């Protein structure tokens, strides 16, 4: 008992760090996955995408940097899979300079690998990054091609078949934002959704999600909040399209370590209080 008491009272923060590292690593190595049922806010976005008629024009905006990749990438992947399976057209862009790399990553990892039959310029296009943050959304409202005169590869925008009938942001059937801050889903809602009555779907980090709940369901069709939201969307996607059962589980695989780490943190809170009361009694 005394050993435990002294251990808790003099607990080095490095032991806590090691505990968390193990709590994450072991389940990851063991591929410990957690089954999840889609919550209403996630299911509603899934259904909104399902309800779009084929060949709909959908913007997929990559508004996140490398620091939130683990949360945001699975969301972008799941959207790309869902949209292409439903034969929609994807217009990929980024409001964040650092988002451009993630856009490429989605094309390389998902579109080129899993959908070799899809044609660049017909089924998907890489518009790339443009500076201007929410101001860019404003400008796109007036003149889309004035801002994007070329695609991300430098090809003239008028030579790209799927850009033919685009003049303003209002020509799109839906905007999906994968984001982690400002500009992000909130700006898409304020500057595009509210103004042009374009349906907006959000997929953001757990921290951001907290601030976006008030916009659902009126201004926001649905929301994936953090890894959990992404994993729920994957569940919805796999149950409808079982072909993604092996490739489409990025977030679910990450949810195992997540759950274990959470339990470890709960334990730490309890231990912290035990040590506090033990220390107080000793005085």
């Amino acid at each position, binding site marked *: 008992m005394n050993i435990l008491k002294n251990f808790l009272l003099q607990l080095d923060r490095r032991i806590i760090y090691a505990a968390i590292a193990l709590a994450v690593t072991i389940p990851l190595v063991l591929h410990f996955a957690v089954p999840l049922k889609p919550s209403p806010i996630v299911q509603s976005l899934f259904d909104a995408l399902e309800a779009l008629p084929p060949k709909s024009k959908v913007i997929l905006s990559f508004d996140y940097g490398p*620091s939130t990749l683990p949360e945001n990438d699975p969301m972008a992947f799941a959207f790309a899979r869902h949209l292409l399976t439903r034969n929609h057209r994807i217009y990929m862009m980024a409001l964040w300079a650092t988002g451009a790399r993630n856009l490429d990553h989605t094309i390389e990892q998902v579109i080129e690998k899993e959908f070799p039959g899809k044609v660049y310029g017909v089924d998907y296009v890489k518009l790339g990054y443009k500076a201007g943050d929410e101001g860019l959304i404003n400008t796109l409202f007036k003149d889309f091609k004035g801002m994007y005169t070329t695609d991300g590869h430098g090809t003239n925008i008028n030579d790209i078949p799927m850009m033919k009938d685009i003049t303003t942001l209002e020509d799109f059937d839906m905007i999906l934002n994968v984001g982690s801050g400002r500009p992000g889903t909130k700006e898409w809602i304020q500057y595009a959704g509210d103004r042009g009555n374009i349906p907006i779907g959000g997929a953001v980090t757990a921290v951001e999600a907290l*601030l976006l709940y008030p916009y659902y369901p009126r201004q926001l069709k649905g929301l994936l909040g953090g890894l959990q939201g992404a994993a729920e969307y994957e569940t919805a996607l796999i149950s409808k399209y079982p072909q993604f059962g092996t490739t489409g589980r990025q977030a679910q695989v990450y949810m195992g370590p997540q759950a274990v780490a959470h339990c470890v943190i709960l334990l730490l809170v309890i231990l912290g209080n035990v040590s506090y009361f033990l220390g107080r009694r000793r005085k």
Partner: protein
Amino acid sequence: MSLFLSVLTLSPLNYEYFAFDKINLFVILILLVTAILFFVLKARRGKTLSIRKIAGLEAVEEAVGRATEMGKSVLFVPGSRDLDDLQTLAGLSILGSVARMTAQYEARLDVPVNRSLVMAAGQETVKEAYLAVGRPDLYRPEMVHYITDEQFGYVAALEGIMVRERPAACFYMGAFLAESLILAETGNSIGAIQVAGTAMPVQLPFFVAACDYTLIGEELFAAAAYLSQDRRMMGSLKGQDVGKAVAMFAIVIGSLLATIVALTGSSFVGSLFRAFIRLFALNY
């Protein structure tokens, strides 16, 4: 008021020259500006206004004093956003007051920043503070120095500065993002007194959990006024209180009206409630 509003918005006014759909915004703006101006002017005439103690701010001077005694430096971080965020400007105003203290105590001041514009403004602020207390000899432009615009590159450098220089007092005042807890925990591990202030709601819990004192939201903007003890600045705080009173009054009236509607279903009170709500309508 509601009658006045409906008369205004229904009358054939010329919308081309004034956005009458935002008239409610205009009215509230004028109300708040008048309240603040009234107290600023009243204070200028020499009226002493009493302001309650703010614990975090009482601690600032104590922390600078302790750093001086220990012969260690004072670290000041004015947030991680640019000059186009008002929190950064509030942080710089507090820097002005802290710099006066370090000049008086002859303590070392270190202000690493992650925006070039903030560096320029920060240098002016610190220089003026050292001049104001008559110690321009102690001022060095390198006190405020630029690191990198990259949020986490800046954080990496700050962590390095903390564990190597071991400042005795760390101030985090301004707009903070995810770095808040990294800074506060590193500061905690070196045993520094930490006072933080931010108006980023998501980051406040981390500062509250890991720092000795935290200025919550509005207190950040009040801090400069409080620390400077400038009468006109203190007056503006009284004006803010009028704003809060307006907000509380509106919430009480509004929810009472809504309750009466819910209980009685009276159509008269219902229309009264709808008129009241229009005062707070947003027309972007």
